[in-house]
């Protein structure tokens, strides 16, 4: 009996339970609970959980997980304690993985469009039919000589699935692999590459830092690798030698991370880059800078005198000098530029300024600073293709270049501004395939919908991005047999290749699992560190499956030294505050959009646990809200819970007002994540999508979409039914959250 069949068997009822019980009695393994997928079926004992090491696929951080499986069903996801990224911990989003797999609104089998696009009218087809339809369409396109008309839109791919997809495209004859993600950090890659020549994101060593200066990086909640950074944050606060690390947060709207900072610097929106440069100016001016070429820096930074910057940024000159002093005198220190600063139209400039700060303080390459990551064990094309961006996709579509569009694991219609016109691009494309587990705003325009395995049902691998300073490769293995009639993306591409043959006949693997294992075999034979870790590949592979991947034991690797030269950055400095659409007289408030802590770019909105999880900063559940400073609200005559109409030159939404003391009076903020029109019962028709208000403004260098790019006006629009869980947020002297001074002495 095959293991998969066996799982199905025991899945159907207690009859199987009885059988499993007997088998279990005969061959109970002594205490071994971490078992790899390849070990025989006898390890499954009803009532006794097995744990499979795998990968969290809910965001790009790449945390390692243990899936707890009983009787063929995933019961819980926990962090893999051995995994260097998350060290056994998980965020709320990651823990909701089983709710993706067992979501009542998952697509249960392949679908072919019957009604008009966008109506969601589909008929069930078989996988054979689906693969045939794709093969036929692609063959026709290739025959007509426009193979380059095949466009693929996916989130950034880093594992062997990415390698497979790229081989597929290359063999087919298309170069159009678009890798898009709303919070895809294109600006960060660009800035770090331009300034330091880094191809991948560096490791920000928050754990060992004693002074973290964060420019809009909500790193303990949503930024890049939140679990990893949260773990580091905890260590920085209480575990480090040499005392507790301090956190200073520069952002117009207090994020969750900002709320934990020792100091909040509410710079004016769009001036954070100037503030950073002014701090850099102060560092150089006071002679606190490390490294050479001081004249060069003086020259580059000449325009950013703290006295001038103070007016622009709304941060006093003294404070700029104080931060400059603390940043250079507290060792080690670390500056981070997050989504807050990279989300302007000139987002690169803010990140560039942060790079300058780290350079001047001597943080690059230092423990507790910015540490370049080693090359991943399994190589893939890591460079971001800045040329292929949403606007070029739309332009190509307008020129009729897009003959077929395959969208995998991405919902760009939801995450791009209406002005980007992606919905019409997808609607008008001649042949659209959506590879998605859910009928979302993008899939609803597809001709063919291929239901994907979830991360708990599929094979895969991953090199975490950002890395953690050492080499890490994670393996994703199925913890359960597929619950529905879905497939993995790799198997779809291999299936199409097999059917089309011809130029694609090079892709011969029978399954993606086989393809993956072969890729690892190759890596094992080439990589000396890998082959040294086990005698045979099979032994290595089994060990890797058990552990969840491969990472060498903590060895101090030779660190690449990086420097930032004044010349390399000078082309990317902020010349003026970031541009916002709309005149301040008509649209008095800056609009800041940020990812909802659990739904992120909207992907978590279909998971009931997350809908009911109170937002940490507002406690709002099941909806959208707009954060308004209490004074501003009073001036506008708005009370908490009033519905507000928020209008930008590009669009308008309504959202209930939440009185937020942690926001500048000239700014309002709305979380991204709700406002789905599709995406299942829990997400659809709930709240508003603030991205609809944005103009389509991209950083010219990278194509990153600017989220902080418009001004808005606010007016009352009647009552709302905002649901928040907090009663009062005033302690009233009840000493609920007690504080102690830094030396650890008790205060009271």
């Amino acid at each position, binding site marked *: 009996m095959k293991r998969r069949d066996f799982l199905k068997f025991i899945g159907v009822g207690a009859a199987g339970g009885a059988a499993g019980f007997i088998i279990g009695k005969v061959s109970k393994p002594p205490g071994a609970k971490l078992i790899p997928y390849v070990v025989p079926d006898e390890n499954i004992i009803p*009532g006794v959980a097995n744990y499979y090491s795998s990968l969290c696929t809910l965001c790009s951080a790449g945390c390692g997980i243990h899936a707890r499986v*009983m009787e063929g069903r995933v*019961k*819980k996801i926990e962090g893999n304690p051995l995994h260097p990224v998350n060290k056994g*911990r*998980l*965020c*709320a989003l990651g*823990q*909701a993985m*089983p709710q993706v797999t*067992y*979501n*009542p609104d998952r697509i249960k089998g392949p679908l072919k469009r019957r009604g008009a696009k966008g109506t969601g009218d589909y008929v069930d087809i078989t996988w054979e039919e689906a693969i045939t339809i794709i093969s036929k369409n692609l063959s026709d396109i290739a025959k007509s000589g426009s193979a380059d008309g095949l466009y693929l839109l996916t989130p950034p791919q880093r594992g062997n699935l990415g390698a497979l997809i790229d081989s597929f495209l290359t063999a087919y004859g298309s170069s159009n692999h678009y890798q898009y993600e709303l919070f895809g950090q294109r600006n960060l890659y660009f800035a770090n590459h331009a300034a330091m020549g880094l191809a991948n994101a560096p490791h920000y060593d928050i754990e060992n830092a004693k002074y973290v200066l964060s420019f809009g990086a909500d790193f*303990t909640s949503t930024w890049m690798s939140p*679990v990893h950074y*949260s*773990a580091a*944050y905890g260590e920085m*606060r209480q575990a480090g030698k040499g005392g*507790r690390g301090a956190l200073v947060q520069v952002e117009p709207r*207090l994020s*969750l991370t900002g*709320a934990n900072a*020792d*100091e909040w610097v*509410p710079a004016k929106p769009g001036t954070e880059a100037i503030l950073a440069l002014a701090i850099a100016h102060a560092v150089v001016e006071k002679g606190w800078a490390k490294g050479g070429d001081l004249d060069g820096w003086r020259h580059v930074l000449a325009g950013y005198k703290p006295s001038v910057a103070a007016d622009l940024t709304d941060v006093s000159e003294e404070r700029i000098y*104080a*931060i400059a*002093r*603390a940043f250079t*005198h507290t060792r080690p220190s670390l500056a981070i530029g997050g989504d807050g600063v990279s989300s302007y139209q000139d987002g690169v400039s803010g990140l560039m300024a942060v790079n300058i700060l780290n350079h001047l303080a001597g943080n690059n390459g230092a423990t507790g600073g910015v540490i370049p990551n080693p090359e991943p064990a399994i190589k893939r094309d890591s460079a971001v293709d800045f040329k292929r961006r949403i606007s070029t996709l739309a332009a190509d579509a307008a020129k009729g270049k897009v003959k077929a569009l395959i969208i995998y694991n991405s919902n760009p219609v939801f995450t791009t501004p209406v002005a980007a016109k992606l919905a019409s691009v997808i609607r008008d494309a001649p042949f659209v395939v959506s590879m998605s587990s859910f009928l979302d705003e993008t899939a609803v325009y597809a001709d063919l919908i291929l239901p994907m395995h979830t991360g708990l049902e599929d094979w895969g691998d991953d090199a975490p991005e950002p890395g953690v300073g050492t080499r890490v490769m994670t393996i994703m293995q199925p913890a359960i047999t597929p619950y529905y009639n879905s497939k993995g993306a790799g198997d779809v591409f291999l299936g199409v290749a097999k059917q089309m043959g011809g130029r694609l006949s090079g892709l011969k693997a029978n399954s993606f699992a086989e393809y993956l294992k072969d890729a690892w075999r190759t890596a094992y034979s080439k990589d000396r560190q890998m082959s040294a870790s086990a005698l045979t590949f099979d032994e290595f592979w089994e060990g890797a499956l058990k552990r969840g991947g491969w990472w060498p034991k903590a060895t101090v690797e030779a660190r690449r030294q990086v420097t930032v030269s004044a010349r390399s950055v000078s082309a990317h400095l902020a010349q003026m505050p970031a541009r916002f659409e709309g005149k301040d007289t008509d649209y008095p408030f800056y609009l800041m959009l940020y990812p909802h802590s659990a739904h992120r770019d909207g992907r978590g909105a279909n998971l009931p*646990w*997350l809908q*009911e*999880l109170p937002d*940490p*900063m507002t406690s709002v*559940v099941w*909806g959208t809200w707009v954060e308004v400073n209490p004074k501003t609200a009073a001036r506008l005559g708005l009370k908490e819970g009033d519905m507000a109409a928020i209008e930008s030159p590009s669009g308008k939404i309504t959202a209930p007002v939440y009185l937020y*003391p*942690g926001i*500048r009076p000239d700014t309002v903020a709305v979380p991204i994540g709700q406002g789905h029109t599709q995406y299942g*019962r829990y997400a659809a028709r709930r709240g508003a999508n603030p991205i609809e208000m944005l103009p389509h403004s991209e950083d010219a260098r990278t194509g990153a979409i600017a989220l902080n790019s418009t001004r808005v006006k606010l007016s009352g629009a009647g009552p709302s*039914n905002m649901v928040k*869980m*907090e009663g009062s947020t*005033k*302690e009233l002297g*009840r*000493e*609920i*959250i*007690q*504080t*102690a*001074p*830094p030396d*650890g002495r*008790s205060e009271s």
Partner: protein
Amino acid sequence: MSVLNSIGEKLKSYRVPGYYTKFDHRWGMVIDLDRCNGCEACVTACYAENNLPVVGEKDCANSRAFSWLRVERYVEGEYPDVKVGFIPIMCHNCAKAPCETGCPVYATYHNQDGLNVQVYNRCVGTFTCATYCPYDVRRFNWRTYRPDKPLDEQLNPDVTVREMGVMEKCTFCIQRIRAGKDNAKDERRGVKDGEITPACAQSCPTGAITFGDLNDPQSMVSKLALSPRRYRLLEELNTDPSVIYLKRVAKDGSTGTGE
């Protein structure tokens, strides 16, 4: 007479607080508020581990969400001098639990592990325990909540699915404590420190929550509990809670830029 006396003695010993003269364990938690960033990963972990139902928008509006563990946020000051603090609050498994006094049927009582346990089968739903609990951690099954199918596939078989009319609350993940003790017993040894981890502590990204036996002076919790930052919530009520907080560290200077 002697029979009466012996009954009297029995009753007396039973009435005296601390009926169990020697607890096997005293499970406790130390939560470091200087680590906790309020991310609520722990809240979701508790939902996942303990089969907590999702009640929907309407019941949430009426404060009926099931979170056995919640993260409270307190905000002092006005822009730009805003101070925010977070505190995760679950059942404090008070050694002198007011809720236990309230229950007429011993559906909530103290067990030999020093836990305040909740026996769902026994509960008749008088709400007394919940009104008496100063920490407002008790949650009631206002109706029979069932997840939409097939979300129920994920339910934890080690934990019951409660029905309408019963009270519930954080159990310190008693099923994990049981499993840990069973394991130790199978191996003919005592429970090792750190071997048992409740779901919230397990998931906490910042490592803010530590769980262990306060009776064991060598345990991590016992050591952390000696911290000068230690305090307990509403300690003045004499509930003798088993959750110990470590104070958040706050710079006393106003600029705090490292000087």
